[in-house]
């Protein structure tokens, strides 16, 4: 199967501080992943792990320091960015800041239709918009002429998905699409992604810190930590049988809606973000319970254990596959 999107050795460095006391932070550090058609792929991690930066680079909002992005067999260049093609659309975190509060929501839809010349005449445009809105459970009459403040957050997020669907994209990049939506309405958004994948063959790059919805919706997942992908594979393998100590920490930190399963142990929290980014060796060494001397000096290699990529010294050859916790 031909890959829809391939990201190879993507690196992005930011300079922090003044001209004199300057430090380089590698926000995205040699990240490689690919996406198949009709697949939901999750990038998960804490805030400040580089997942949003990765999405921005794929969308062309940021310039990568090095690395290549191949979309549909074409290499993305400075001139031809992925987002400039009709095949890729984006959905953002806060639906209230996606839309200008002084503009009616439908004007965005007509603008997109006009920009891509998707319909002749107003009636054809309305028909097209109505078709897309029905996919997300809304209709044209109930949204025409309204301003963003007349919708709830969940509705507005579904509207922004409908807007993304106008150009019939094959890839949707969704950056934390449910984190501003109430827990009780999250499933309506997440179920929508499933429907788009199954019925329209759309791929979704789902960026989130919410592993519970990630497990529910996605096919494959990559866990990011301080710019590195530390574990990547099928969602069943990565989340049900986490190998990297960081994935385990994330997995254990999700508050489960079951009062019998409360946490008993205490958790180590991050030091200053900067310190972790500048750490030599494995960036998780400062918080890892299974840390050894080697972790502090050498950066671990990417190792495959049963089709799952793990970036940890514990899994290097000759060490056995299942270290005790």
């Amino acid at each position, binding site marked *: 199967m031909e890959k829809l999107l391939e990201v190879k050795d993507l690196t992005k460095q930011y300079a922090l501080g003044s001209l004199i006391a300057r430090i380089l932070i590698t926000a995205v550090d040699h990240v490689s992943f690919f996406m198949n058609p009709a697949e939901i792929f999750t990038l998960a991690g*804490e*805030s*400040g792990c580089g997942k949003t930066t990765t999405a921005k680079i794929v969308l062309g909002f940021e310039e990568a320091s090095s690395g290549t992005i191949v979309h549909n067999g074409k290499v993305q260049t400075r001139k031809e960015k992925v987002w400039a093609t009709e095949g890729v659309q984006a959905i953002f975190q806060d639906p209230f800041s996606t839309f200008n509060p002084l503009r009616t929501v439908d004007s965005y839809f007509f603008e997109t239709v006009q920009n891509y010349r998707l319909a002749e005449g107003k009636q054809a445009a309305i028909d097209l918009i109505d078709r897309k809105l029905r996919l997300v459970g809304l209709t044209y009459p109930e949204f025409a002429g309204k301003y963003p403040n007349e919708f*709830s*957050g*969940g*509705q507005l997020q579904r509207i922004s998905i409908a807007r993304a669907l106008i150009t019939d994209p094959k890839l949707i990049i969704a950056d934390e699409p449910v984190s501003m939506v*109430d*827990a*009780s*309405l*999250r*499933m*309506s958004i*997440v*179920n929508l992604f499933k429907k788009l994948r199954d019925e329209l063959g759309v791929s979704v790059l789902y960026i989130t*810190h*919410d*592993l*519970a*919805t990630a*497990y*529910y919706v996605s096919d494959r997942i990559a866990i990011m930590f301080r710019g590195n992908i530390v574990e990547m594979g099928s969602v069943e393998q990565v*989340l*049900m049988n986490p190998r990297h100590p960081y994935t385990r*920490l*994330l*997995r254990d*930190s*999700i*508050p*489960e*809606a*079951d*009062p019998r*399963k*409360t*946490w008993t142990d*205490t*958790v180590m*929290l*991050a*030091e*200053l*973000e900067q310190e972790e980014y500048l750490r030599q060796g494995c960036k998780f060494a400062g918080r890892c319970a299974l840390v050894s001397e080697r972790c502090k000096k050498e950066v671990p290699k990417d190792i495959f254990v049963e089709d799952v990529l793990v970036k940890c010294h514990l899994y290097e050859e000759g060490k056995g596959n299942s270290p005790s916790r």
Partner: protein
Amino acid sequence: MEPKPETILRTDQLKAFYVLDMHGAQKVIKAVNEVNLEIQENEIYGIAGESGCGKSTLLKALFGAIEPPLRLVGGKVCYRINWEEVEVTSLSAEEKRRLRLEYISYIPQGSMSVLNPVIKIKESYQDFIASHVPEPQRKKVFEQAQQQILELGLPRNILNAYPHQLSGGMRQRVTIALSALLKPRIMIGDEPTTALDVVMQRGVIQMLKEIQKKLKNTIILVTHDMGVHANIANRIGIMYAGRIVEEGTTMQIFEEPLHPYTQFLIHSLPKFGDKMMRESVPGSPPSLADLPSGCPFHPRCPYTRSICRESMPGFSYPAEKHRVACWLIGEGKHGKAS
């Protein structure tokens, strides 16, 4: 009615409405409607509900911070201070100010705007102490603050940092430490973990639990995340459209939810190892300015009957500490959402 001996905060038929005057036409937003709460000493009480159900307004009323356009329309809020019940509305502004931080403190949502960005955390601490502690003890209290910061696992040099140098989770923890400094009897948290990611959220919950254990005080926690409630709360009240519709111990709410809305809230959460299709609560929350007749949940409820459209159900008590306002339960028929 005499309050039970261990009740520390009590509301009686509390009604707080936003009254807006729009070009002569009055618009009334019924954010808190006939709420009766009895919150005990030494417990963590969780309030759950969707955004726009009046949770934050209820907290404002509990905190005694009712300012126009919010109006106290009826009922009362009572604190028990030194074995005596005090009605909050009867206090003067100065008396209320003195109670804050010392007796009751507030942890706001999103700590970004709490700490003054142009002064060091240390100076914020000194400001707070100066406004609540008489001069001779200030130095001692500041030493206690330094001690407390270490005990709560925050880095020692945090006092010398500016707020922008800290991450969101760290700032939230500093805010919580600050609100616990003068050992208040009641702490009110408005979505303190919402903007944080999972690991930091766990750290904040851990810290709140630690503080509660040490001070043996009351924490009232509002969040829409049922997972957080399962982990921290002793009792939970479910709020819908300005009313408490169900209340019980955490076990009762999670094991035997009786109100259809509570059932939806709990069953809509995804779980690990279970990829079964899950549905959101159908429809969207009602506007508080234009509430449906009868039970406010009836337009979204799968078990609606004619009586639900006509009048609001009263509370029935299926078990000790468990109360629920639903017509289905009132007649002994327990509906279960599949």
